[in-house]
C-alpha cells in the first residue's frame, strides 16, 4: 500500500465534495432536520425523545453516508475512472483507504455537528459521556460509509445502488432493537439480528444513553470490526480485470 496514493485519493474525493456544496449541505443538514422533527414529534413525551434520540443520532448519518459512498464508488466504476486508476500505481487497498479517509473526515464533521445540535439545541441529556456519544455517532456514520463501499460492487447502476438502502439498511433498522427490544423478538429474528452490524451500532448508542459504558465499549468495538470487514470486502471485490 502506498500512503501517497491513499492521501491523493482522499484529497480528490474531498475536492469533489467541495465542488458539490448542495450534497455537502444535505449531508450536514438532513440529520439535523430529522432530529428536530423527532423533538417536535415527542413534544409531549420528553422521556421517549431522550430514549430514541441517541440511537437515531447515529442511524440517520449511517443511512446518509451509506448512500453517498455507494453512489460515489459506483460512479467511479461506471464513468471509467476506476478502469483508468487500475492501470496506475495505486493498489485496491489504497483506493478503499482513500475513500475511508475522506468519508471518515466527512462523517466526523457530520457526527460532531449532529451531536452538538442534539445536545445544545434539542436538550439531549445522556447518562453516559457526551464525548463518547459523539464518538459513537461518528462510528455509525463510518459504518454506513464502509457498508456502502463494501456493497457498491454488487450494483451496476445508480438505481440499484439506491435500492440497496431499503434492501440492506431497512431490515437492519427493524431488527436492531430500536422498535422491539431484541430479547422480546422471536428467537430466529434475535439470532439474525446478532450478526447484523447495525445492531451493535444501535446498542452502543443506547448503552451510552443509559450510562452503561462497558456495554457501549463492547458494542462499539464490534461495530468497528464490522467497519474493517466491510472495507476489506470493498477492496477485495474491486477487480483490476473486468469483462
Amino acid at each position, binding site marked *: 500500500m502506498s500512503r*501517497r*496514493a491513499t*492521501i*491523493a*485519493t482522499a*484529497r*480528490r474525493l474531498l*475536492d*469533489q465534495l467541495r*465542488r*458539490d456544496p448542495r450534497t455537502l449541505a444535505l449531508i450536514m443538514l438532513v440529520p439535523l432536520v430529522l432530529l428536530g422533527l423527532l423533538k417536535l414529534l415527542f413534544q409531549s413525551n420528553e422521556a421517549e425523545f431522550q430514549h430514541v434520540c441517541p440511537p437515531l443520532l447515529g442511524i440517520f448519518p449511517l443511512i446518509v453516508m451509506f448512500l453517498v459512498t455507494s453512489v460515489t464508488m459506483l460512479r467511479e466504476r461506471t*464513468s*471509467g*475512472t476506476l*478502469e*483508468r*486508476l*487500475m*492501470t*496506475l*500505481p*495505486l493498489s485496491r487497498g489504497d483506493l478503499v483507504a482513500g475513500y475511508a479517509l475522506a468519508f471518515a473526515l466527512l462523517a466526523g464533521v457530520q457526527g460532531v455537528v449532529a451531536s452538538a445540535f442534539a445536545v445544545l439545541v434539542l436538550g439531549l441529556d445522556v447518562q453516559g459521556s457526551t464525548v463518547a456519544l459523539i464518538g459513537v455517532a461518528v462510528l455509525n456514520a463510518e459504518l454506513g460509509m464502509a457498508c456502502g463501499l463494501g456493497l457498491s460492487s454488487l450494483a451496476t447502476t445508480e438505481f440499484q445502488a439506491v435500492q440497496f438502502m431499503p434492501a440492506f439498511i431497512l431490515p437492519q433498522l427493524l431488527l436492531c432493537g430500536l422498535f422491539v427490544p431484541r430479547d422480546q423478538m422471536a428467537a430466529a429474528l434475535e439470532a439474525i439480528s446478532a450478526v447484523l452490524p447495525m445492531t451493535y451500532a444501535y446498542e452502543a448508542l443506547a448503552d451510552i444513553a443509559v450510562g452503561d459504558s462497558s456495554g457501549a465499549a463492547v458494542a462499539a468495538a464490534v461495530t468497528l470490526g464490522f467497519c474493517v470487514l466491510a472495507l476489506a470486502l470493498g477492496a477485495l471485490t474491486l477487480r*483490476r*480485470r*473486468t*469483462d
Partner: protein
Amino acid sequence: MSTAPAISIRGLQVDRGGRTVLPGIDLDVAAGRVTGLIGPSGSGKSTLMRAIVGVQNVAGGTVSVLGQPAGTPSLRRRVAYTTQSGSVYDDLSATENVRYLARILARGDDEVRRAIDLVGLSADADRPVGGLSGGQRHRVSLAGALLGTPELLILDEPTVGLDPLLRRDLWALFDRLRDGGATLLVSTHVLDEAARCDEVVLLREGRLLATTTADGLRRETGTDDLDEAFVRLIERQDGGAA
C-alpha cells in the same frame, strides 16, 4: 525491425457476455513508432487496448508489454492509458483531475501545468470538466497520460470530436513523443488519421485485416482513398473466405 516489439500479442482471445470479441489475435507493435489502430466502432479496438493495459479479462493467449506480461505492476509507471470515455471526474477542473493522477505518480504541480499546456487547455484549466466539450474532456484525459515520461502510450480515440486544427496539433504532439523515444498505439475510426501514423493496424469484427503503413495500404489496394482501400481489403478478405 531490429529492436524487440513494444507489444507482442499471441493468440489473444477475449469473450464478453458470451460473445467472442477477439477470436485470437497475433500482433506486434513496433517500439519507437506511432501505430494507428484503425477500425469501425465495435471492431474490438477498445477491448484490445484494455487487454494491453491489463484491465481486460482474457480467455486465452498472451500479451507481452515492454517485455513483461500485460498488467504487471511495474508496468503501471511505464505505460500511460486513456479510455474512450475520457475517464475524468466531471465535477473537478482539468487541473484537479490531472493533479490527482500526478499525485499518484509522485509528480509535481509544474508537470501538471506542463501537461495541460501541451494539450492546449491552459485557458480552461480551472473550469469543471463537466462544462467542457467532449473533445476538451478527452484532452484532460490525455494530459494525464503525458505525466512523467511513459515509454508506451495507449490512447483510445484521443482525437474524437476535435476540430481539424487541434487534431493536427495533437498528431504533431504524438510525433514529438515518438521522437523522444516513446511508443504510441492510437486508436481511431477516422481513416484519414491512418495517414498520420508510422504503422497502421486495421481491425474489423475482432480480426486483423492488415498490418501495414498508410502508403503500403494504398499500394496494396491500388487506391489513394483510404475509405476505398478499407472497403477493398474487406471485400478481398470476404471473397477469400467464401
